[in-house]
């Protein structure tokens, strides 16, 4: 009985929920220890997520690129690759999409898709490098993708600075024909920056699920991820699969950048540091167990917590870093689901013993 439950899908949901609860309790303890009122803190936080349509819209807006960068990491992860380079792929994707947006004119029906494609392609290209090196020369993809992050940052900054600078630190705005922003979505959410990219991100989650679990290619990606030799034996093109799954991962990352550029901002600016969208994507993916649904949910949690933290500070004077602590602890508890299972089993056997 317990064994069945512990293995069941339902339990798969219970673990993250308990983990979130643990994380929040730990956060409350930290607030108490540091002399803050946890109830005020959390009501500020929740107010900052659900308080009104504006905040809710902003939360959805914040989670949009996180879904995509989470998918990017998860896709590679599912195929046996560690794509630490999501960050760099986000940056080049952002850049390419905005440049495709500002450098020519076309009707929206062509312009917007091209700009999005440009972003995805740039991300894919950036990920192709560690992919091909891994496939052909067995170079560890982790280092190459870390290096590619820095290269992306410097190259993109220098191109903006040298070629595309408009005012201040940014390029010109993309025209409406290449913009994802939606007056309607802004209208219903009381002027939040929610944009069509949100739907693209949700669609991408479906795409990833479909690709991995419904297509022939997905079968091969997963097989190669688990066992290259057996995949070779079964006639799969191993190095081709490594390269393409890395590139697909990069395309998701590039889209994450593209929706930020075409949706939230409308431009790209010189980055003083990394955007962190990519690094947060790693955490989102891991928290979501690298599954599409899990990623959407954990991106919501991430987006919500970080949006809400502003209000938490304003309303209760709690430093926004608390949210990072809570996120880290939630990840910790999810990863340690063994602990939760163990506690559950213990409780169960105590209950039985009493009967």
């Amino acid at each position, binding site marked *: 009985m317990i064994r069945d439950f512990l293995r069941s899908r339902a339990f798969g949901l219970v673990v993250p929920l308990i983990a979130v609860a643990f994380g929040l309790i730990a956060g409350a303890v930290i607030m108490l220890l540091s002399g803050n009122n946890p109830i005020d803190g959390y009501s500020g936080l929740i107010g900052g997520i659900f308080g009104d349509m504006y905040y809710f819209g*902003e939360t959805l807006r914040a989670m949009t690129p996180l879904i995509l960068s989470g998918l990017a990491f998860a896709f590679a992860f599912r195929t046996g690759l560690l794509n630490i380079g999501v960050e760099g792929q986000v940056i080049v994707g952002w850049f390419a999409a905005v440049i495709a947006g500002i450098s020519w004119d076309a009707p929206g029906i062509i312009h917007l898709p091209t700009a999005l494609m440009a972003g995805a392609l740039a991300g894919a290209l950036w990920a192709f490098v560690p992919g091909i090196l891994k496939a052909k020369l067995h170079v560890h993809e982790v280092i190459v993708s870390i290096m590619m992050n820095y290269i992306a940052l410097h190259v993109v900054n220098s191109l903006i*600075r040298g070629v595309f600078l408009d005012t201040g*630190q940014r390029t010109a705005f993309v025209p409406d024909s290449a913009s994802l922003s939606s007056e309607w979505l802004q209208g219903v959410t009381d002027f939040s920056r929610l944009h069509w990219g949100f739907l693209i991100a949700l669609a991408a989650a479906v795409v990833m699920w479909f690709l991995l679990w419904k297509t022939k290619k997905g079968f091969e990606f997963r097989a190669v991820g688990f066992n290259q030799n057996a995949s070779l034996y079964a006639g799969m093109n191993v190095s081709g699969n490594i390269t393409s799954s890395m590139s697909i991962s990069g395309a998701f990352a590039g889209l994450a950048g593209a929706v*930020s550029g075409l949706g939230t901002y409308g431009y790209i600016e010189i980055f*003083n*540091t990394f955007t962190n969208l990519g690094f947060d994507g790693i955490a989102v993916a891991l928290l979501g167990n690298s599954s599409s649904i899990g990623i959407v949910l954990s991106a919501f949690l991430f987006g919500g917590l970080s*949006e809400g933290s*502003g209000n938490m*500070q304003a309303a209760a004077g709690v430093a926004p870093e608390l949210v990072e602590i809570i996120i880290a602890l939630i990840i910790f508890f999810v990863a340690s689901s063994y602990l939760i299972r163990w506690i559950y089993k213990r409780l169960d056997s105590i209950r039985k013993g009493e009967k």
Partner: protein
Amino acid sequence: GENNETTDVNENAGNNNAENNAENNENNDGEEAAEGDFSAKMVTDTGGVDDRSFNESAWEGLTTFNEDYPETEVDYIQSDDSADYQPNLNQLAREGTDITFGIGFLMLDDIRTVAEQNPEQNFALVDDEVLDGDDEPVDNVANILFAEHEGSFLTGVVAAMHTETDHVGFIGGVESPLIEKFRNGFEAGVNYVDEDIEISSQYAQDFNDPNQGQQIADSFYGNDADIIYHAAGDTGNGLFTEAIDRREGGEEVWAIGVDQDQALTEGEYSDGNVILTSMVKRVDQAVYEVAEMTMNGEFPGGETLEFDLEDQGVGIAETQDNVSDEALEAVEEYEAEILNGEIEVPQTEDELEEFLADL
């Protein structure tokens, strides 16, 4: 609902006698408070409210304002990344804040958007000018600029007066028009004193890499520069590290700080302080003034206030222990020349070239 027509920048900015205003408004204030507290709040950029730079300075302005007018309410919201600017500005606007300051030119576009969405609210942007789609100023936004080039010119003068090797340096954070103003002003100042002084300059392309700052400083000092000015945020801390290190090793080198009187917090070594002087940008004063004007119903919406040498919006730091009297005299002299228009300090590369050609 203050409606201000665009007025002449200087005319308005000239009206900056803070103390005077403060006294004048004591009476006024009681009425305002009765209607509901006047609130002035700010959104920091990603540096945070305690960045020992302009965010901190702006917050100081607001806290002083609050001390002077205790019935008012002041507060800030911190931004963790640039995607936070808009929600944070929006949040303050929604709370009905009487004036919301955006600190840093990175907030330019966000403040425009939020201001357009909340036409009843007042905003002010530090370090840039908000223009709408037709390049016209936005009615409910006041723009606060500083003449960094003028202040940097004076530090350039100090550097030129102090250099023993006739070689000085400049370290920039990320290359951008704003940081260019610092550099061009500095170079103009140095070469105005002595055309033959060599100036090395380099961008770290990062505001947050003290290690690189140190290495750049190392290579400048190693190539005989003895005074280095920085406009590079945390990267500049590496400059101080290197300067202290060389000082301890007996070398006579100097560093010049930026934005605040950095000698107060940085640069100490066993036998003094390596910071020769700093280029101070009085964000506090600017914020204070704009808040006060707004409270008095004189919100300078749609206007651009440039705080320059004349209004003491920029200048060299109060800590002057290391500066020679000679240099101070020169500073005074050139300051007067700038004020009376004899010297027009260049802001851009092109202007600098022209300026140097005319020497």
